[in-house]
């Protein structure tokens, strides 16, 4: 069955940052340079080809873009300046929007003004919401930061955190299921027995926490930064979701909780500044191109980290009112960042990348088995 070409796809992908794919003449130097590219996941060449050809369906069902960590080696090798690394990044953005059933992701990626507007609206709602709660449902006094009568008491924030967390996790899960459907349930994919899903389940946490494949890229710096940023983020998320009470106690320092807080704050601010500096200087192939969403993401991250630190300092400095105001401002960054980035944008790759590694392993295991039990012989060898 012939795949219908969508000639407009390459124009569409431009909005997602894949601007130079037209220049590719399929020499394959990129795939030769990549330490992860291996049969049957020959990337970036094959993904570039699907994109150039407008083969929307094969591109949507490809796992390849997620197996790339964007070390930039391919872009350095490209003789035509087709920026295969950035193209893969653009394809990942596009895939994120394809997995997202709400269409919000697509809107945010394609239009920076929409993204900015969304951030501002969510921030404004958050600000109004927390101020109203503080005055009406909370302690009522902006001058009380912690203890009884706190303006924003930890237990209330907890309820909010968990409610939001569950909603976002639900949205992301639906998108993950769509990803599974596109990549594992298409006519070219090999059916996988349920037992295999169980056997390889451990891959998910391993690759989530270590990103150890990234280590195999020739350029190690991005892996280190990426790992520090991700672990700092996870640590901070854990502190907030579980130990918010301890975090908000004071003014004396609670070393059991705050040690982790300081470390992860340093990690967040350090790696964010490093990334912003790199993108401004364009100091490496992976920093040469910045999509609007990259700037929004880094901007929000820096904003959230800095306001979090300032809030902490103000609290310790005995300025509860200033600390409370900063707290609200901090939340005006946190909520848009999580609400928009986790299911619809950048943060979602924390889920998609380990899933892709898992799915790719399942495909290879199923193919090695001969792929008979699950769908039966007829489905086992789908017509090409």
């Amino acid at each position, binding site marked *: *069955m*012939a*795949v*219908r*070409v969508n*000639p*407009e796809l*390459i*124009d569409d992908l431009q909005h997602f940052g894949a601007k130079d794919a*037209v*220049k*590719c*003449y*399929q020499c394959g130097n990129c795939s030769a340079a990549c330490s992860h590219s291996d049969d049957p996941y020959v990337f970036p060449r*094959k993904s570039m*080809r*699907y994109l*150039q*050809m*407008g*083969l929307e369906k*094969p591109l949507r069902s490809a796992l390849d873009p997620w197996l790339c960590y964007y070390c930039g080696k391919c872009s350095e090798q490209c003789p*035509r300046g087709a920026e295969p690394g950035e193209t893969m990044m653009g394809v990942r953005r596009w895939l994120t929007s394809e997995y997202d059933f709400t269409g919000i992701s697509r809107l945010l990626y394609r239009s920076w003004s929409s993204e900015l507007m969304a951030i501002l609206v969510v921030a404004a709602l958050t600000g109004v919401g927390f101020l109203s709660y503080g005055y009406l449902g909370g302690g009522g006094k902006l001058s009380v930061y912690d203890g009884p009568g706190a303006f924003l008491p930890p237990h209330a924030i907890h309820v909010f955190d968990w409610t939001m967390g569950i909603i976002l996790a639900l949205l992301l899960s639906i998108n993950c299921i769509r990803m599974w459907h596109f990549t594992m349930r298409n006519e070219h994919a090999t059916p996988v027995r349920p037992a295999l899903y169980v056997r390889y389940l451990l891959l998910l946490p391993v690759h989530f926490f270590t990103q150890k494949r990234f280590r195999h890229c020739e350029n190690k710096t991005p892996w280190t930064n990426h790992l520090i940023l991700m672990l700092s983020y996870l640590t901070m998320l854990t502190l907030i979701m579980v130990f918010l009470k301890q975090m908000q106690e004071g003014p004396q320092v609670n070393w059991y909780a705050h040690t982790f807080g300081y470390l992860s704050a340093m990690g967040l601010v350090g790696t964010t500044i490093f990334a912003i500096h790199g993108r401004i200087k364009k100091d490496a192939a992976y920093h040469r191109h910045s999509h609007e969403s990259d700037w929004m993401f880094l901007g929000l991250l820096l904003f959230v980290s800095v306001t979090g630190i300032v809030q902490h300092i103000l609290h310790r400095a005995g300025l509860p009112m200033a600390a409370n105001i900063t707290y609200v401002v901090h939340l005006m960054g946190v909520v848009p960042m999580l609400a928009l980035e986790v299911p619809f944008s950048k943060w979602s790759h924390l889920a998609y990348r380990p899933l892709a590694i898992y799915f790719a392993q399942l495909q290879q295991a199923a193919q090695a088995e001969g792929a008979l039990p699950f769908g039966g012989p007829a489905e086992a060898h789908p017509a*090409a």
Partner: protein
Amino acid sequence: MAEERIGVYVCNCGTNIGKIVDVEAVAHSAVEIPGVAIARSYKYMCSNPGQEMIASDILEHKLTRVVVASCSPRMHEATFRGAIKRAGLNPYLLEMANIREQCSWIHDDAAAATEKAKALVHAAVQRIKFNEPLESRTAPMCASTLVLGGGVTGLTAALELADAGQQVFLVEKQDHLGGNVARLDQTAPYLDSAQDILSNWIERVWRHPNIRIFLNAELTALTGFNGNFKPMLRTEDGEKLELDAGSVLVCTGYKEFDASRIEQYGYGRLPDVITSFELEAMLHSGRLQTKSGKQPRYISIVHCVGSRSDKYHPYCSRVCCTAGLKYAFEVKSALPAVHVSNLYSDMESFGKGCEDFYRKASEARTSFVMFDKHNLPVIRAAAPSDGCNLLITLKEQLSGEEIEMPADLVVLMVSMEPRADAATVARLVNISCDKDGWFIESHPKLDPVATTTDGVYIAGACQFPRDIPESVVQGRAAVARILAKVAQGKIAVDAIYSEVQDKLCSGCRTCNSMCPYGAIEYNSEKHLSHIISAVCKACGCCAAACPAGAIKVRHYTDEQIYGQIEGVL
């Protein structure tokens, strides 16, 4: 004959001959042959001291003939002829025995090779006894040139010749000048207007006092020979006109492949499948639209239509890749929103500026879709629900996917092929065509614009698919050859040619059709055949065919050949 004094010179050729053939023994055996006055060997006979030795021997020992036993005559015959001529002997009183290519290089057995060398020297000595002194002659050279074809090649050649002060007869079959280039809009890779290139030349050709233009005219016969041709034209008015021309330059160009021969492309059946020339016309008129008058959204350009195919033409037409890339720019400048795709099997955009042109075309957002040349795409009409006019299905080589592409207009890059009348023209001017029908040059590298018929030249796309710069270069190369001859004012005729001995000729005309060079005329009044010595190449076909033995090949007489045979035995 007894008074002939023959000198025999045996060459060592460094060690090329000497390491196998006992050169001294060959010289010693030669001295024994009656008529041989002296026999010597030397390290390099072709060197200056070697030539000096022969020359001084001629004077000192009063030699009348010289045999050199060395390499092939193709290598050094002219050298030794020059040497004996300087010493006062007629150059045709030289014979060469090839003891290098025919002995030392091909034999391991030294003794046998030496015996063979002796036999070859013996044969040369027996032959040379019958050699006659011959004189080269000259024939007049007519300065005017007949140029066949008024395309870009013919125009440039005519202008160059005319600017050099020579008369040109420019014959064009159509009613206008410009040829196939006149059908183009812009030219790759610099996107100059084809009309701009041509109009200047055409205007100058029309104004030039040395150029006589014949439109709607054709060559009907060509008699005469190098430097003295008599072309017969049929002019616009249907009249016959005989001209005098010293040289003939054929630049009759090409025609395009009939795209309807590839049925699966649907040309002629699907109205929106057009040829590259039809697109050129659309672009030139500024009306780039489908047959139904709509603006196209998707334009696909199919390459190698008739080229590089076992079924149609095995060769590459060479210009179509770059021409196809050109459309990306032309189409996009007319309709920026159009999606242009190039369907190719290999992209061969060679030549100055063209690789860059290829890169720019892809930067101009053209897609490149690769098909297998043994499994051509199929073009069919789309259904109304498809949202396009045509659908192209193919196995895309670089993605490995079976794909279906939407198209509103499909452009077929038709190959170049010899004109339908190429074989007729070839017969008229006595040149040959290759298996594909292109005119054959004298030598592909060393003599690319000459033909096997002296005085007849070929240039441009009648010889093989050529682009405009190459055609211009070839046209001017041919002009250089013609002007060199015109500057000499006469043509040298080799002393070696065949002659009919009138007394023996019965006028049977057997030889007339045998001659591969058209050198034999028949005198119907005297009932005799006559060989034009300037055209004759002394191949000997006529002499072998003549039932009366009336034809003598100068320098290859029966006596010489028999002498050589007896000598070798």
